[in-house]
């Protein structure tokens, strides 16, 4: 079943075309990675998928409903987006509770249900220990975990990740990638992950979509990815190597 479908969407910033007639479809409970060079339109595509940006042409549908016809709160109950969080004065718990916004009603306080869901999201992402600390006092890795917790607290079936492991050291990269994979498999959440890490994409995702200069270059199963695909995409030569577990990984040749 379709979770999200983008139909020939184009987005322009001023005169520049950020996304040029991209179509693709994510199925329920699928893990898709979007790769591509800097400025290829990965973030813009994610933002168009969850309605942060309205595409100039084309449409996005979630579970068969056009998102342009949905109320923002309704949409926020179906799909969410996580990015690098800015450092700010909110505590971790305060920030995660904010994700319950789609379920808040005017002049009603935070309910016990909201608090329980918030607590559970913190447990899954191991953020309970620093729930009282301010976001500005956390390391990038910890803040990324909070971002994931807040997305979970929103209780959507689809989560979009915008470069969740960029700027993280290998330890946190591994930890965050595993965490995303865990919520994907355990909670059955459809994940669309824009990333610069080709090997993470190959390791965790079912399918890889590549963008270059706003256009779709390829859309294939991650097991079928070849080094020649990457050569074309990034303009440098790649070689494929195999790990002990006979898993394919890619390295730059020279």
């Amino acid at each position: 079943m379709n979770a999200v479908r983008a139909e020939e969407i184009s987005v322009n910033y001023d005169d520049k075309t950020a996304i040029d007639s991209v179509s693709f479809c994510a199925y329920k409970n699928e893990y898709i990675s979007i790769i591509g060079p800097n400025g290829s339109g990965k973030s813009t595509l994610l933002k168009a998928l969850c309605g942060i940006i309205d595409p100039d042409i084309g449409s996005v549908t979630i579970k068969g409903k056009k998102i342009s016809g949905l109320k923002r709160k309704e949409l926020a109950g179906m799909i969410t987006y996580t990015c690098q969080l800015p450092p700010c004065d909110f505590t971790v718990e305060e920030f995660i509770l904010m994700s319950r916004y789609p379920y808040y009603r005017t002049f009603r306080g935070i309910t016990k249900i909201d608090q329980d869901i918030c607590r559970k999201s913190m447990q899954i992402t191991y953020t309970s220990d620093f729930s009282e600390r301010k976001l500005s006092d956390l390391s990038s890795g910890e803040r990324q975990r909070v971002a994931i917790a807040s997305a979970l607290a929103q209780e959507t079936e689809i989560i979009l990740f915008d470069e969740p492991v960029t700027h993280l050291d290998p330890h946190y990269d591994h930890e965050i990638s595993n965490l995303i994979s865990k919520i994907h498999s355990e909670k059955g959440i459809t994940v669309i992950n824009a990333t610069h890490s080709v090997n993470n994409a190959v390791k965790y995702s079912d399918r890889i979509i590549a963008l270059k200069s706003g256009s779709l270059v390829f859309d294939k199963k991650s097991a079928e990815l070849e080094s020649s695909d990457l050569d074309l995409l990034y303009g440098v030569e790649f070689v494929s190597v195999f790990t002990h577990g006979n898993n394919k990984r890619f390295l730059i040749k020279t």
Partner: protein
Amino acid sequence: MKVINAKLIFLAFLFSAIFILSILIGGDLSFGSKGIPEILYMIRLPRALTAVIAGCTYALCGAVFQSLFRNPIASPFTLGTAGGASLGVTFYISFFSSTGFLGLALSPVFAFAGALLSISVIYMIVTIKKNFNPNTMILAGVVLNFFFSGMVLFIQYMTNQANAVRITRWTMGSLDASGFDSLYIPSVIVIICSIIIYSYRDDLNLLSMGEDISASRGVDVKNSSRNLFLVSSIMIGAVVSITGPIGFIGIIAPHLAASFFGRNYRSLLPAAAITGAILMLICDFASRAVLWPVEIPVGIITAIIGAFFFMRLLR
């Protein structure tokens, strides 16, 4: 949460105490032929109420703008809203004040029109650009503020001397309310607008985290910001028309409140409003006491205190 509620109750008590003190303390209770109760009721009480309304308004609007612009020094003054309102009133004083009784009621309308003008210009800049940067908006506000001050000075220079003096005196800010009559409409406006702003508390929390996060959490960014801008301008217009521009409370009060209550707008909004009212009452008291028996315009006091506060903020 419980701690915050306790703090809020304490703040409310503090406010009540200062409010009562500000009505009771002051020289010359044997003013003219009026008795003590008349002075308390006819002069001190309206004045204290004006201070409360103005303090709440500047503080709430400051808090709102700081979230919308994600900038700690955004306030109705840095963004030209109060400047626009000032221009409106200046315009009114020089050209329409001779229209008598009917003219009296028009001053808030002019102030509001000015505030709305400034907000619309800034808002236009936002809507034209798809990927708007709050810093661009702040710069636009600063430029607009210069433009408005220029226009105020121009009108002041061109108008007759009596009007020029009135404008000068008015731009210094004052809490001298002429009885309760001038307070009814602004109070109602401020109360309604405060309730509307409070209903946007969760939006304000998210908006301070940036457009992408707020939109993905379900905030209708365009609608919410537009409504918040509009409501803030109405409040500022209503208050500026009776008090003149009184700077800095809009920046100081939210920060002071945030240092005790945190940045969560659920508690920050009421805390900032009460803090603003308290600060305004204290500044008003200072303006009466510093050079007693001469009273100095309260705008001068808030500006001097504000400058010191800014230094602390910069550290």
